[in-house]
């Protein structure tokens, strides 16, 4: 019984994560400039990765594997928003301006 | 499914390698090289070479990217166009590659238990390690104990590399050059080395 619940939960988490991954990937390809692409990449880095890792944790159970997964998740949650932030800052500093609503309509 | 992962990763590797050759901007090349080593580490995990994947993760993706960036800061990030036509090198590489591929045709199928590779010393290492060395990770036992001489040689090679770099470039203390900083404000971008 408990196994079915865990399986169902991990299916749900992993499939949701996979959907977000693909959405983010398409976004990275389709968005018009660096800052909006960062937005799309951010989804895959935190939300999708988090969901997939949580889904894997349900499969791992109460073992060292899950502990390592938690650590990976923690590190990812620490590092990837920070590098996104630093990247956005560096891009702005490097002279790239975001495309705004009034600059697009000419 | 695992096979599909292999094919996909290999295809990505090929695309990245071609792109590496194509780009003239060395910075983009460093970025792509980082992707390349990430991919090859994923491939090593698939091949069960976990220790190699570990090394590739730590060295290829991390440190070597940083060191390459460090050298780009010294030499600038623009690659010169080659002066010679690439026809002859291409020919040599193509012939060598074709010969190597021809050589693989005679190789035994990958991963079969009775391949010559698995007949030489590997069975002895695997059978003896639990009783003689009692280390769960056989790779560590082979590297540090059975092949201790080889590892010592590697350490000496790394040691020599450090001696070479320290002798050629020298490690400078940023504080010791106050006077040189006074006539040159701030770091120069791109770092054109003065002759």
């Amino acid at each position, binding site marked *: 019984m408990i196994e079915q619940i865990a399986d169902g939960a991990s299916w749900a988490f992993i499939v949701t994560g996979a959907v977000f991954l693909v959405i983010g990937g398409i976004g990275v390809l389709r968005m018009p400039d660096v800052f909006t692409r960062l937005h799309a990449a951010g989804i895959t880095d935190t939300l999708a990765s988090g969901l997939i890792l949580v889904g894997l944790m349900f499969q791992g159970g109460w073992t060292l594997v899950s502990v390592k997964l938690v650590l990976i998740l923690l*590190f990812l949650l*620490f*590092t990837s928003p*920070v590098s996104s*932030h*630093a990247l956005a800052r560096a891009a702005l500093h490097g002279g790239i301006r975001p495309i705004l609503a009034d600059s697009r309509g000419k | 499914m695992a096979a599909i992962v292999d094919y996909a990763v290999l295809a990505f590797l090929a695309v990245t390698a071609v792109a590496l050759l194509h780009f003239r901007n060395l910075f983009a090349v460093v970025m792509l090289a980082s992707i390349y080593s990430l991919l090859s580490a994923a491939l090593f995990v698939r091949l069960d070479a*976990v*220790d190699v994947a*570990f*090394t590739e993760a*730590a060295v290829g993706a*991390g*440190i070597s990217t*940083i*060191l390459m960036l*460090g*050298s780009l*800061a*010294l030499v600038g990030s623009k690659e010169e166009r080659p002066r010679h036509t690439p026809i002859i090198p291409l020919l040599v590489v193509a012939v060598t590659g074709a010969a190597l591929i021809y050589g693989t045709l005679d190789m035994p199928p990958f991963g079969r238990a009775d391949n010559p590779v698995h007949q030489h010393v590997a069975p002895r290492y695997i059978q003896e390690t639990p009783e*003689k*060395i*009692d*280390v*769960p*990770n056989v*790779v*560590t*036992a082979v*590297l*540090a*104990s059975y092949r*201790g*001489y080889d*590892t*010592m040689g*590697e*350490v*000496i090679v*790394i*040691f020599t*590399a*450090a*001696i070479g*770099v*320290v002798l050629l*470039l*020298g*490690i*400078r*203390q*940023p504080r010791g*050059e106050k006077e*040189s*900083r006074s006539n*040159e404000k*701030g*770091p*120069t971008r791109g*770092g054109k080395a*003065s002759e």
Partner: protein
Amino acid sequence: MTHHLVLRVVANILVGPILLFALYVQFHGDYGPGGGFQAGVIFAAAFILYALIHGLEMTQRVLPIWVLKLCIALGALLFIGVGYACLLLGGNFLDYNALAHDPVHGQHLGILLVELGVGITVFSVMVAIFYAFAGRTGTD
């Protein structure tokens, strides 16, 4: 990069765990993937992160150059020293069985020391190369 507040805070938090993880890789190499080489690189990566955020000058206050030069030789000497210790205790060069009364214990001790030597050398060499490259940039 000290004006990046977010970056600085997170990097300061991360340096400790990275060092800890490097030690785990170093001394857990007998049981799982990893060993001296990987641990040395990860240990060096922590210092490089620190140098990237706080500058070379601060890092060299934490890890002075003379310590580094000492460590480069120390690791290699430790490795070779283990070899000679085996020789003096009656075995062959790098024959760890001679290190302890029980051959298996000797092997354990030998592997531990040798991996430590590899780790120290790799760590200090990586940081030394980084120092050499980063210290030269911008002032020439």
